[in-house]
């Protein structure tokens, strides 16, 4: 039975969703109910974004040949390196009604987690005004999953440009002397996780640029990257945020700076550092990762 309160809430939710999809903030002077509705809408849109990321990962990969099925697709050289899929580590926000659902293929009732913060489509939207014939790289609202890793740091210079230019048009970050180390691992904080382990269970391997660095809880920072080339998985959002350890907090060394462009390997372990490789030629780095992949057969993630 629908009550007037339910109807009022539904109307608020619908209005809030429309604002979120249009990239608008809550109305100035909005009451608490309206603000809560806006937060629910932001969270739901973030969930949908995340779902599309997962779906895309699954569907981008060719299916193995199965009885009665067509052969796997021509993936050509779509993936430079075949590595494990990324993992999403959701934040903690309660959303929607308290219930759970059983899903085919899982054989269990599970609870779905959600990212709570700035997951709205507007917050992550970046530049790009592609016309049918003049398309910039996909802009922004990445699945707002938060990733955890231990200290992330790197050597190298900062470009200092955090603009949201499309990856295809983005100028490489200034590299100065660091460029001479092209292809070499720029930093490993020595937390014990080898590159092989990191690669085997990587949540993400990509070439990208640090767009923003913001404090997170405790000794963590929230790093947002503009990804120009996904290696693992083969495709993904053009912008993604990871929550990682603040390298300053544990004295592990240098720190990434906004605008830096690297090849990043984000390990699964929260106690491991993120590996970074300097460009602009990443062939050596890719070869190193491929070699690590060859050695990771027995790694349990």
């Amino acid at each position, binding site marked *: 039975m629908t009550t007037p309160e339910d109807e009022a809430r539904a109307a608020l939710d619908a209005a809030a969703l429309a604002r979120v999809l249009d990239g608008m903030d809550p109305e100035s002077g909005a009451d608490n109910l309206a603000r809560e509705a806006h937060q629910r809408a932001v969270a739901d849109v973030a969930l949908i974004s995340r779902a599309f990321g997962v779906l895309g990962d699954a569907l981008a990969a060719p299916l193995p040949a199965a009885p009665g099925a067509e052969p796997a697709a021509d993936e050509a050289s779509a993936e430079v390196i075949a590595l494990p899929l990324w993992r999403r580590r959701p934040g903690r926000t309660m959303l929607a009604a308290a219930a759970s659902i059983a899903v*085919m293929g899982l054989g269990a009732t599970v*609870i779905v987690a959600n990212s709570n913060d700035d997951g709205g489509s507007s917050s992550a939207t970046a530049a790009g*005004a592609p016309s049918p014939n003049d398309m910039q790289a996909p802009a922004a609202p990445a699945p707002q999953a938060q990733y955890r890793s231990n200290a992330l740091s790197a050597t190298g210079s900062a470009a200092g440009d955090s603009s949201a230019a499309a990856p295809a048009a983005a100028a490489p970050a200034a590299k100065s002397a660091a460029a001479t180390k092209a292809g070499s691992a720029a930093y490993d904080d020595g937390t014990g996780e080898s590159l092989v382990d990191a690669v085997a269970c990587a949540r993400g391997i990509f070439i990208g640029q640090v767009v923003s660095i913001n404090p997170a809880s405790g000794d963590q920072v929230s790093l947002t990257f503009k990804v120009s080339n996904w290696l693992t998985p083969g495709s993904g959002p053009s912008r993604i945020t990871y929550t990682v350890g603040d390298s300053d907090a544990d004295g592990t060394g240098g720190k990434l700076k906004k605008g830096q462009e690297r090849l990043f390997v984000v390990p699964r372990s929260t106690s491991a550092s993120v590996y970074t490789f300097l460009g602009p030629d990443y062939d050596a780095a890719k070869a190193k990762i491929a070699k690590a992949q060859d050695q990771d057969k027995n790694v349990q993630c």
Partner: protein
Amino acid sequence: MLGDGAAATNASADPLPAAGVGRVRAVLALGGVPAHELDDGVQQVRLKLLEQAANRHKEEIRDPVAWAVVVASRVAVDWHRGQRRDDGLRERITASWATAAPAPSPEDRVLALTIAEGMAGLPETHRQVLTLRFYADLPVRDIALALDVPEGTVKSRLHAAVAALRERLTGIEVS
């Protein structure tokens, strides 16, 4: 002038950058194109890219991957005009997870399957804008330009589609 990712200028090269093949496949599949038609769909996108590159009167493509994704979404909609929608999206996703290790977390599986189910009940044009918005990450304005429809049309489709998907999320507890 083609962008950095456009090695396609080389006549002997694949007009669709390798990094874009997966994205095109995903967009086609999200649009409901069945698995056995995906290769044909990818080929159609390649042909469109070649046509575009050969047409000197058209503007050149700065980002072939983003362009290809939009073309793929159109191919998916066109595919539905003459054929029945593929309803096996859920099964395909589950099969993919069964063979790709490690699979996404159980939480993400639930979420993705919930959304996939919701997608199955939507009109093709709604699926198209959802895919371009949330998978290709294109802003509404760009989707409108790419599809040559008014922004208001994209918004209304997007709002309706998201509202429908949101209904599916009700009942999922997040922690």
